[in-house]
């Protein structure tokens, strides 16, 4: 897509203050009456757009919602840590997760400990690792993630 005539491009650059002083002087020396009317029209469009958007924004106050989100962000993170039994030290969390995954794999390949079919859509319903019981939850992500599903191993630690 191209612009109109070269004069249009030059006039626009003049209007937008994108010319050198020498170029500006040349344009000003050669402005026709139509050019002046076009410049006025450009100024009018600019004024209408800028004033409309500025007026629409006059009463905006983002702070109350932002303040909640900023405060909530910190609280949510702390809550998530508590919920998932995460500690400040990522190594201990990783170690726990590895233990849980290893236990889950072992149970999967050896034998479920109950004869009935688990009710959670997984092959096992719960497992015990490092002295703590962990729940196994099947999450159907299909609506968001195609045919994907997620299995969550949920451990709880006492504070």
């Amino acid at each position: 897509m191209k612009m109109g005539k070269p004069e249009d491009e030059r006039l626009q650059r003049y209007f937008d203050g994108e010319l050198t002083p020498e170029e500006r002087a040349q344009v000003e020396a050669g402005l026709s009456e139509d050019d002046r009317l076009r410049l006025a029209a450009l100024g009018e469009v600019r004024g209408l757009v800028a004033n409309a958007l500025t007026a629409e924004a006059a009463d905006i106050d983002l702070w109350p919602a932002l303040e909640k989100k900023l405060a909530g962000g910190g609280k949510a993170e702390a809550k998530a840590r508590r919920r998932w039994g995460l500690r400040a030290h990522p190594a201990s969390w990783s170690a726990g997760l590895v233990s849980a995954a290893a236990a889950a794999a072992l149970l999967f390949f050896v034998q479920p400990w109950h004869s009935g079919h688990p009710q959670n859509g997984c092959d096992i319903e719960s497992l015990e690792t490092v002295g703590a019981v962990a729940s196994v939850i099947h999450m159907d992500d299909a609506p968001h993630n195609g045919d994907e599903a997620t299995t969550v191993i949920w451990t709880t630690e006492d504070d």
Partner: protein
Amino acid sequence: MEPDDRKLVEDARRGDATAFRELVTRHQRRAFAVALGMVHDPDDARDICQEAFLKVHKNLATFEGDAQFFTWLYRIVVNLAIDHLRKRRGQQVEFDDAQANDEPDEGGIAPHRTGFDPARALADKELRNQILAALDKLTPAHRTVLVMREVEGLSYQEMADTMKCSIGTIMSRLFHARKKMQQLLIAYRKAANPAA
């Protein structure tokens, strides 16, 4: 004397919530005006601005002291708005200039006015709605450059950097956006006042 943005950023970095609040209060209207001009929907514009300020807050430590705070915020707002438009339209083609103009290139800005006094747009809600509706009829690429230029006065180079395209592309988009806006506003003026 009010502290400048740099001082407020430094204070906010140290955890001063009052300083960050002052930055929000100081720049939220300009940010919202830009976002609204781009996405048209006030709720979406509000969400975009909130997300932009949250990103700013999260990344205060990376802010370079010699940069302008608003330029930084502004780029985040524009990029979030562009992402939003792409998701909303479900396609990237809207930012393709080959698709951006369905009219012949002949003819520039018409040498006559729409007949609306720009000052009226400050007080006349109906006129503002018409201007916003006209903006919404532009392609996202055209709307974005028009808002960047007319509201914030960004240079061609700044706009090219923000939109990651050439200055020639920016000039072309701006040219067609202005022309289209003028045509839409003249049509609205004629419809509202056929005798004019």
